[in-house]
């Protein structure tokens, strides 16, 4: 078991170190998040719509599109110099590789989603108040479900001739539960409703993330096999 964790951690550490050095994905995702906030601001006519009513939906859309931007490239980066081939030929179990890649992607997307929350509450003048902690938690669950599905299908789409363009076609239909429960929860939390009102939704978000993680851990080996 400790070998397993060492292997997982080695890959997570490697991915994060590469990201810190190149800042390739975090910069693109971060810039996307802020710019999306700016554009969304112009897409709302404040004489007819209150920004805080639609903010939750926009936060999650930014998360989904920004996540796609970063997660979609995760295996592309590995493909340079065939390094991923070396990882696959090591004794590290394929589920360990999947969980590690997902963890690293999660760290990245979660950081971006917190940035999104901050930027949008600034731009749209949201008062997050006493629900801030729960919002941070809910975005974490959503990000986890997203990266679990995203990492699995990024491996699929990287292996096809269509590449990253295929990724949204594959994951968007599957992500619907995450978006529905995520937006539903976030809207109410931003509105200052008590957590007990959204507890069922949060449970569903958690169940979705766990199911996606389990499915990815089992199926990943069939995707990366040559």
């Amino acid at each position, binding site marked *: 078991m400790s070998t397993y964790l060492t292997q997982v951690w080695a890959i997570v550490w490697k991915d994060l170190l590469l990201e810190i050095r190149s800042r390739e994905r975090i910069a693109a995702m971060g810039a996307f998040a802020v710019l999306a906030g700016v554009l969304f601001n112009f897409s709302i006519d404040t004489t007819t719509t209150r920004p805080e009513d639609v903010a939750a939906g926009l936060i999650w859309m930014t998360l989904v599109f920004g996540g796609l931007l970063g997660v979609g490239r995760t295996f592309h980066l590995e493909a340079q110099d065939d390094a991923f081939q*070396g990882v696959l030929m090591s004794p590290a179990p394929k589920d360990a590789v999947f969980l590690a890649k997902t963890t690293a992607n999660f760290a990245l997307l979660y950081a971006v989603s917190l940035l999104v929350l901050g930027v949008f509450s600034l731009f749209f003048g949201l008062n997050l108040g006493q629900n801030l902690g729960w919002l941070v938690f809910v975005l974490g669950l959503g990000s986890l479900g997203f990266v679990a599905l995203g990492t699995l299908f990024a491996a699929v789409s990287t292996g096809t001739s269509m590449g990253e363009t295929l990724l949204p076609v594959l994951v968007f239909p599957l992500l619907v539960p995450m978006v529905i429960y995520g937006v539903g929860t976030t809207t109410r939390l931003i509105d200052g409703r008590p957590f007990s009102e959204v507890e069922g939704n949060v449970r569903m978000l958690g169940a979705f993330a766990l199911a996606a993680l389990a499915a990815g851990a089992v199926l990943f080996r069939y995707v990366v096999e040559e």
Partner: protein
Amino acid sequence: MTVVVSASAHTLGVDEAEQTVLAGSGGAVLQAAGLCREYGTVIAVDGIDLSMNEGEFLTVFGPNGAGKSTLLGMLAGAMRPTAGSVSVRGKPLLSSDTDWRHRIGMLSHKGFLYGRLTVEENLRFYGKLFGLSDLDERIPARLEQVGLTQRIRFEARQLSHGMRQRLSLARALLHDPDVVLLDEPYTGLDPSAASVLRDVLDELKDGRRTVVMVTHNLREGLEMATRLAVQVAGRFAWEGDNQGLGRKDFERHYHDVVEGRA
């Protein structure tokens, strides 16, 4: 210690092939039986049997598109054969048990390196994946062997192609594998880098290891090999021991084989 290497017909049944493995699993380190690999309608490897003992060095020559890399990929357990099986010290590859991966090291013309990681970080990363605990001693030793001690803090992308290939070699040998697989290791190397590679590969002939190299380059690999094979269209069209044939003579023989005259 008899060695049986034979090109078998595609029609060889899997059962028969498996029996061959069992019969010969006494001392053989690396064994393949009835290996086939198809990509859709393209047949890359078309029935190859192989049995290698400790200390043997096999070089597989062949023109481009003969399926050499596919053969090596299957021997490395990186590719799943369409038919047939590979085993290392009697343990079949691609079983759920991945112990055999500790016994195989592979060097390709692609380095399997992360350009943004330093020389040391690259090796440490792979060392951890292989579950090695003595990396603090092991990594300097390997770097010494390939002459990269001075570059330990350099990022891999800052190294010249020759140095990167030496780092790849250190990576491939880091976990001290019994079976070393080399896929066109000389591609793109300048003469001095090639000579370092040759020296390190020479050290591999310590009688403990089993080496398989594939190349389309007749210059390299002829001297070191104890056994030779020529792969054409997915099969071993010819194979035998290296009887110290000169390069010119072998070249003539090779062309005869490839063009179907021998």
